[in-house]
């Protein structure tokens, strides 16, 4: 769910005005009402603003536009619009198999304890490299760890197309191996075209989302 920043901006404006009363007229804190006002605007309101602001920013950082706002990620964003169902990320994005507004976060967050926290920490590292380091070329960007089937199975496990798919059941050992992450979904020759950013120049793009 996308949070609107307008209510928080209003709350910040109201808080700033009330704090201004204390700053310009500190004498009001001499009365019981003034003390209550000071507690409210110098303690409670700033903490509420900080809490809501943090929630807003964390929520905003899950958005596809947020991830693609760094130029290093632009080719990865373009790869979501490749008009070829063999491209895994594009097929998921264009057919809304994942929430289109949170496409990057949905597939690149580990579905394990502290997965979201770990994603944010890695995001901070990316910000550091973007501003203070040497960002690699988009074609050279690689995952920190091999893609874990757990992330695919978060949605596909139990789905009829996955469990009863002809190719998945051609070999009786395949599905148990996939579920145990012994055979990778994306690097075992089955769904290997994910973000093929190196060949985007020759790709045809879907214009439906524009």
């Amino acid at each position, binding site marked *: 769910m996308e949070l609107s*920043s307008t209510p*928080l*901006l209003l709350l*910040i*404006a109201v*808080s*700033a005005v009330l*704090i*201004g009363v*204390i*700053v*310009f007229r*500190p*004498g009001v*804190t001499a009365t019981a009402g003034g003390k209550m006002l*000071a507690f409210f*605007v*110098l*303690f409670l309101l*700033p*903490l509420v*603003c*900080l809490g809501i*602001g*943090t929630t*807003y*920013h964390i929520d*905003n*950082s899950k958005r596809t*536009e*947020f991830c693609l*706002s*760094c130029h290093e990620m632009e080719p990865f964003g373009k790869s979501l619009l490749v008009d070829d169902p063999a491209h895994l990320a594009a097929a998921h994005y264009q057919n809304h198999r994942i929430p289109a507004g949170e496409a990057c976060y949905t597939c690149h967050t580990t579905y394990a304890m502290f997965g979201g926290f770990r994603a944010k920490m890695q*995001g*901070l590292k*990316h*910000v550091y490299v*973007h*501003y203070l380091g040497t960002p690699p070329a988009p074609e050279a960007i690689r995952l920190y760890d091999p893609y874990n089937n757990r992330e695919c199975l978060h949605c596909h496990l139990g789905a009829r197309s996955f469990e009863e798919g002809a190719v998945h059941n051609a070999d009786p050992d395949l599905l148990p191996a996939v579920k145990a992450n012994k055979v990778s979904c994306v690097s075992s020759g089955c769904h290997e075209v994910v973000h093929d950013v190196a060949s985007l120049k020759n790709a045809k793009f879907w214009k439906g989302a524009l």
Partner: protein
Amino acid sequence: MKLSANRLERRLQVSGILLILGLLVEATCLLWTRPIAFVVFLCVGGLLLVLGVLLYLFSLVSGNQQER
């Protein structure tokens, strides 16, 4: 604006100034949709807000000690 001669009131004023600056940073970061905005929000805005709140709490404690 003049800072009050009273120590408790002066601390409340400084606390308020820190909080207003923190809120301004927070508001700016809300309108700035870049990944760096989150870092500025937490490191600058958050720090100013926490400092302002802590100074307010300290002013309460030190104010009580003076009254004794």
